């Protein structure tokens, strides 16, 4: 195996451009003759647009045009769709409010765009935007999630602001179990709203070629093909074959760049309308207001147990804030990506979950790192920890008693998933040892001697990654398949160009995928190039989200590589005058079994393009495509342990240690996997201790900048101790499960279990800010 093969800590090839300032992000792209777009955004959470007077703005210096939602509608531009149809308990379809890219009659959240100004310079566009006079009639907004269904109706056709009322699981079995349960643990809590804040703000540069009627749209998307599909099929911007979407280097996404947003839609339309390339780059204030937010649940959870601590049933009621409109995948996050994960790592025999998705006059809420699974893990791991405390059972022991055992896989949960494999006891044992769980009481005494409080908390999470077989997803309402494409193109000289439909915005695919194909084909790592993020260069792809890239995208490349090898064997057999089934392929050499006849991969590649007397049934060329549709979700799982020290005088929580032991199945590049875990933990710790997107009662975003929204800094975090255990995924060719979200999923519950342990309180709201902690101690 080469030094750059599967399982090796290969440094990333993409780094060279990033560390020398040669990355090429959307805002770095400038097209000849480009104009600049600035959006007008609603200052009100809910208002009727009576009139927009753009006369002065239109005459301002440098202005190319001022456009409103009516202009887009008149040009046939459709609404932004939601790609996942969720049905309510009663079988009815979810209620979908119309979402024109630019608001036409009403605005429904602060920051909603309703017009744009295009001008020669950014400064001129901003100055002109200030001249637009908009007459708003303010309407009473719906802000508080708890009262959202009782508030004024936001969308005329949607009663009680309720999008759906969804359920999963066997309610009767759960009620029966609760009726005779010796012990019930109950918790009510919120899962705090988060604002993703990739450091690169969203941006778009759009150009339109009139003679060919072709659009080129550079934009900050995690899935350019999906963007193209939606803009073509639903928004009617252009036919799909006339629309090229390119995601160049993208500076982080964490979910927030999956979605199709109003701004790139309107900017692309404006490029055609003005016959000028149009550029738009969000500033951070716009990002806070208009990027899709994450989480924002209110939940009541109850766990029924017997005297020995065996879980009997779990009952969960959640109200999920969807914001003012349904963002691209918003509906699926608090349902199929949440309710299905409530079994956690446990044998809980009966589970019933009800989720009410509601609209409020706030920014749309959609998938953010983990997407539903952090919320589910928080429910399960907070209530399990609380139950352990109530029953006086060590929290690790209570979990052990209820774990699905290794011999029980495949394991069908009561919430519709079939876990293929896992060894939860193994990762917990490793994590407890690493965290010196046994030594905690001594450390606590030492802290107390210094006047501090100390706590330790566990979180044994599971996640479903890769997003499942298309058939199942489509059955459950998904509007797209969830396969991935891959193409392996062998060049005549034997180097390889790999095309993947997944997209890298920090994950390092250019390295990881090259490792996979290099090892599979025995081609030197340096001779494998990975191409992604351009609908003009690869045929289709579904992008990167849900920790799916290696499990699904990598598997597609394995399948395509298998086809290359099969074709190579036929070519080699022809050249070596043997039968294809006599040819073996290993370490880059095609060899006829039990002979000394062989050809290198490079020789076969060359022959493929210089085909001397190939038989009729052997086509020249060596390039293969594959679409891989996963047979099941993958189920990464692990144990996270947080240890905190609390200063009771100020309420400051110091995270002194964080241990994560994760089972991601096989690992392609341990260095990259560790980096993914670190980043996820940081976001999870951010949710638990620092981050909170807050609207005031009037619907204004209070945390609209980094002055108020607390993004974790280097000195807010400790170094992390991360390790893995391995049970290979049973149903994909690489045995991989996915690692991108684990940290964000496991960490919040681990930290909050530690904080509540330190304080000796049953519950505390996230984020555990100093004042909240201080108040909890005052009250205790």
């Amino acid at each position: 195996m080469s030094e750059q093969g599967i399982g090796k800590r290969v440094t990333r090839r993409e780094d060279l451009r990033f560390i020398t300032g040669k990355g090429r992000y959307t805002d770095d792209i400038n097209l000849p003759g480009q104009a600049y777009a600035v959006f007008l955004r609603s200052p009100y959470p809910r208002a009727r647009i009576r009139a927009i007077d753009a006369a002065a703005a239109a005459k301002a210096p440098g202005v190319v045009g001022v456009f409103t939602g009516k202009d887009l509608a008149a040009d046939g531009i459709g609404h932004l769709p939601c790609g996942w149809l969720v049905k309510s308990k009663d079988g009815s379809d979810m209620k979908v409010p119309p979402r024109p890219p630019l608001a036409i009659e009403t605005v429904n959240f602060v920051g909603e765009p309703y017009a744009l100004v295009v001008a020669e310079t950014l400064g001129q566009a901003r100055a002109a935007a200030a001249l637009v006079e908009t007459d708003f009639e303010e309407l009473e907004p719906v802000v508080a999630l708890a009262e959202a269904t009782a508030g004024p109706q936001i969308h005329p056709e949607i009663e009680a602001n309720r999008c759906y009322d969804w359920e999963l699981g066997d309610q009767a079995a759960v009620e029966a179990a609760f009726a005779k349960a010796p012990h019930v643990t109950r918790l009510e809590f919120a899962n705090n709203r988060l604002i993703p804040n990739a450091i690169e703000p969203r941006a778009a540069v759009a150009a339109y070629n009139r003679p060919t009627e072709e659009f080129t749209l550079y934009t900050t998307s995690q899935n350019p093909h999906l963007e193209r599909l939606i803009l073509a099929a639903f928004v009617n911007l252009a036919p799909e074959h006339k629309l090229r979407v390119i995601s160049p280097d993208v500076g982080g996404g964490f979910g927030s760049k999956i979605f199709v947003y109003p701004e790139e839609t309107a900017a692309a339309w404006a490029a055609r309308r003005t016959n000028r390339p149009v550029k738009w780059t969000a500033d951070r204030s716009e990002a806070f207001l208009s990027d899709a937010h994450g989480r924002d649940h209110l939940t009541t959870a109850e766990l029924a147990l017997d005297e020995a601590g065996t879980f009997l049933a779990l009952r969960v009621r959640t109200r999920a804030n969807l914001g003012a409109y349904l963002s691209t995948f918003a509906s699926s996050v608090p349902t199929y990506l949440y309710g299905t994960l409530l079994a956690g790592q446990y044998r809980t025999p009966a589970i019933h979950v009800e989720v009410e998705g509601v609209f409020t006059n706030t920014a749309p809420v959609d998938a953010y790192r983990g997407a539903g699974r952090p919320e589910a893990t928080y429910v399960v791991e907070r209530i399990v920890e609380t139950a352990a405390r109530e029953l006086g059972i060590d929290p690790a022991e209570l979990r052990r008693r209820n774990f699905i055992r290794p011999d029980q896989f495949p394991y069908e949960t009561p919430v519709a998933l079939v876990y293929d494999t896992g060894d939860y006891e193994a990762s917990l044992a490793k994590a407890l040892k690493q965290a010196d769980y046994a030594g905690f009481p001594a450390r606590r005494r030492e802290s107390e001697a210094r006047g501090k409080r100390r706590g330790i908390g566990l979180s044994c999470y599971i996640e479903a990654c890769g997003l499942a077989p298309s058939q199942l997803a489509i059955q459950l309402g998904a509007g797209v398949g969830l396969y991935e494409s891959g193409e392996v193109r062998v060049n005549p000289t034997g180097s390889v160009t790999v095309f993947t439909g997944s997209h890298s915005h920090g994950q390092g695919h250019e390295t990881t995928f090259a490792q996979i194909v290099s090892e599979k084909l025995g081609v030197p790592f340096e001779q494998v190039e990975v191409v992604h993020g351009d609908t003009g260069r690869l045929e289709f792809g579904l992008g990167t989200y849900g920790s799916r890239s290696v499990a699904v995208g990598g598997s597609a490349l394995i399948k395509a590589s298998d086809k290359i090898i099969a074709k190579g064997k036929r070519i080699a057999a022809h050249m070596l005058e043997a039968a294809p089934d006599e040819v073996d392929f290993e370490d880059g050499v095609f060899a006829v079994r039990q002979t000394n006849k062989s050809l290198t991969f490079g020789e076969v590649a060359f022959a493929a393009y210089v085909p001397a007397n190939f038989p009729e049934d052997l086509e020249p060329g060596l390039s293969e495509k594959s679409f891989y549709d996963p047979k099941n979700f993958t189920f990464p799982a692990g144990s996270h342990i947080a240890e905190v020290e609390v200063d009771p005088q100020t309420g400051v929580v110091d995270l002194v240690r964080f241990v994560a032991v994760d089972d991601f199945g096989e690992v392609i590049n341990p260095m990259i996997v560790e980096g993914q875990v670190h980043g996820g933990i940081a976001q999870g710790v951010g949710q638990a201790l620092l981050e909170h997107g807050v609207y005031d009662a009037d619907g204004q975003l209070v945390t609209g900048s980094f002055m108020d929204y607390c993004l974790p800094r280097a000195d807010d975090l400790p170094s992390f101790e991360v390790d893995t255990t391995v049970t290979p995924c049973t149903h994909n060719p690489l045995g991989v499960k996915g690692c991108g979200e684990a940290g964000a999923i496991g960490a919040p519950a681990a930290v909050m279990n530690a904080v509540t342990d330190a304080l000796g309180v049953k519950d505390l709201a996230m984020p555990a800010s100093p004042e909240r902690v201080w108040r909890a101690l005052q009250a205790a």
Partner: protein
Amino acid sequence: MKLSLTVNETDHELEVAPNALLVDILRGDLGLTGTHVGCDTSQCGACTVEMDGRAVKSCTVLAGQAEGARVTTIEGLGAPGNLHPMQAAFQAHHALQCGFCTPGMIISAIDLVKRTDGRLDEVAVREGLAGNYCRCTGYHNIVQAVLAAAERM
């Protein structure tokens, strides 16, 4: 107004608007797009460059304040084959993912090592980099990279 400054060892005479920011000049007039803009409240540090020997946020320096200044951006540090030790350490320790914060982070890290003569421990690195946000790495590997580079600078 006229502006003279030296960027990455090259002298420039430019005609700029008084309200232009240093970062606008670097990215726009000089095409040095390695310096990024990540916020509008002078916090994220993605725009950090070295000016007259100090790390500064170029989104919070007006053109006129840069008159006569010597500025070093990420492009002026080192190229493949001849990387600055900090650049090399960032790659070796996987201290970057999406790469957007990286140029500013590297400039800040070099400034930190210089002003402490490399006498750094983990706490000092974490506090020293508080002016640079990274959303990808959780800072873990950045800290490792800076400590490693401090040994070699």
